[in-house]
């Protein structure tokens, strides 16, 4: 489904990604974890063709992301980044309608309109669909952006730190939403995430990075172990099993 082969990227003399190869199967939720500066966001951006690598290739569904026309790829792959400094003055419905751009180039058909309202309903924002984005709470805004990529209907969804600046309640809601997208809609979801406990609770597999390299790709139960976490984060982290989920206590 997603195949990253021998990708490297440097800024000046700093090597951000060092010969990274990664293969993710179709479906399921993958969490990308690692300390700051490990290269997670860079890798995600390269997977979504936002950045071009110095070396290596990325294929999604067998398509080379750097050679395939953007409009074709946009039906298979979408990325959501958190750097939207200015949100244009748009209503929720208008924003979500942008998700149909790859299909209708801005002129909505009836089918597009249905998809848009389905997506809005899916993230439970129908009640506020005519409100402006910047009047919403952080969690609602995040859901609106997710609705946009759902309306885009790609097989693959890449999200860069979607939980930033969200409180516990909203963060958990977003993760449940992504989980549902993977289960009910069959999406392949890749999430860069800082809180490893969210990864443990919601992901099917965890990919850990450190200093520009991929160091492991395992199921949560295999990753959530003190010796593994120590190797990733260089700190001692106790892991407790609570109600069948392994949780790390890293606050002390």
């Amino acid at each position, binding site marked *: 489904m997603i195949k990253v082969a021998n990708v490297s990227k440097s*800024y*000046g*003399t*700093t090597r951000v990604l060092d010969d990274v190869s990664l293969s993710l199967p179709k479906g399921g939720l993958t969490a990308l974890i690692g300390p700051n500066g490990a290269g997670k966001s860079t890798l995600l951006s390269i997977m979504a063709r936002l950045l071009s690598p110095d070396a290596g290739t990325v294929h999604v569904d067998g398509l080379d992301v750097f050679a395939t026309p953007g409009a074709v790829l946009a039906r298979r792959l979408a990325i959501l980044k958190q750097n939207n400094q200015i949100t244009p003055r748009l209503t929720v419905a208008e924003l979500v309608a942008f998700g149909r751009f790859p299909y209708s180039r801005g002129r909505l058909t009836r089918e597009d309109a249905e998809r848009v309202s389905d997506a809005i309903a899916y993230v439970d924002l129908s009640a506020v669909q005519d409100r402006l984005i910047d009047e919403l709470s952080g969690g609602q805004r995040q859901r609106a952006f997710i609705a946009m990529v759902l309306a885009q209907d790609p097989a693959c969804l890449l999200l860069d730190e979607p939980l930033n600046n969200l409180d516990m309640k909203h963060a958990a809601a977003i993760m449940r939403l992504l989980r549902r997208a993977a289960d009910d809609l069959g999406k392949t979801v890749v999430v860069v995430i800082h809180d490893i406990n969210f990864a443990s609770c919601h992901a099917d597999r965890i990919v850990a990075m450190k200093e520009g390299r991929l160091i492991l790709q395992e199921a949560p139960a295999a990753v959530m172990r003190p010796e593994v976490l120590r190797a990733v984060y260089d700190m001692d982290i106790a892991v407790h099993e609570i109600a069948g989920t392994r949780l790390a206590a890293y606050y002390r």
Partner: protein
Amino acid sequence: MLPREGSPGAARMFSPPFAGALAGLVALAGVSVLVGVGVTPLALFTGEAGHGLLVLAASRIPRTLALVFAGLAMGVCAALMQMMFRNRFVEPTTAGTAQAATLGLLVATIAAPDWPPLAKMAVATAFALVATLLFLKIIARVAFRGAVLVPLVGLMLGGVIDALSVFIAYRYDLLQALGAWTTGNFSGVLRGRYELLWLTVVLAGIAYATADRFTAAGLGDAFATNLGLDYRRIVAMGLAIVALATAACIATAGTVPFLGLIVANLVALALGDNLRRTLPWIALSGAAFLLACDIVGRLVRYPYEIPVGTVAGVAGSALFLYLLLRRRLRLG
């Protein structure tokens, strides 16, 4: 009070490199005196019936001195302002100071055409002070003080003041006079018409004598207060020096954009931020820069002259751009 005698820079003022640079400046001044229309260098001294000497005393030497004084003043002003605003890109033309001084001269010329130059300069100084204070106020209201935002606001403020000046000058048919103040030009400097600039030497001397205080102010309000210095008084004195010197330069020869900024930055890059040590270098480099630009302006289209403001404006803005964009190169 900071220890003055013991400060490490004091002894270095006449270090061999500085003496060498000083000799270079003197040489440059020599060239400046000898270059020009009408009288060949040789004839200046041997020419018939003292004509050469007359040119020398009435025009050439005053012009060279004016260039040295103005260049020195612009460098010193920029250095002081950069300390007071704690920003590398502030100088009289990027803080509204120079533009306000020009407006002041214009207003004085319209309201009281008969006043002596000194009185007009006083008006210009007052305008410059008010504008710089206004700029300080505006900047203080910004919570996030990005290093580049400060000069950006300053340039804009200057632009607004300039627009006002153009409007007034247009109404009173004084665009020509305004042009003379906004473009630095020393071709009109004669004996009897540049003496205001001696004031800048005095002001530079005061700045040098109190350099340690400005260095301390550059480290911040808290730092200066902690040393028992009155931060507000330092700033007030600094602003007064800057406003006076800027007004004197503009009244005599006009504005030269970015010269002080460039010189102060280049010296800081090489020698750091201890004003006691760097101020003499900044003064010297400012003078040398202006002299060099003036010589270029006189030679490039000989026998016509291109105003030093134009030459220095091009060189200054190119160097300013380099300083601005250089940081990225370092990041790689």
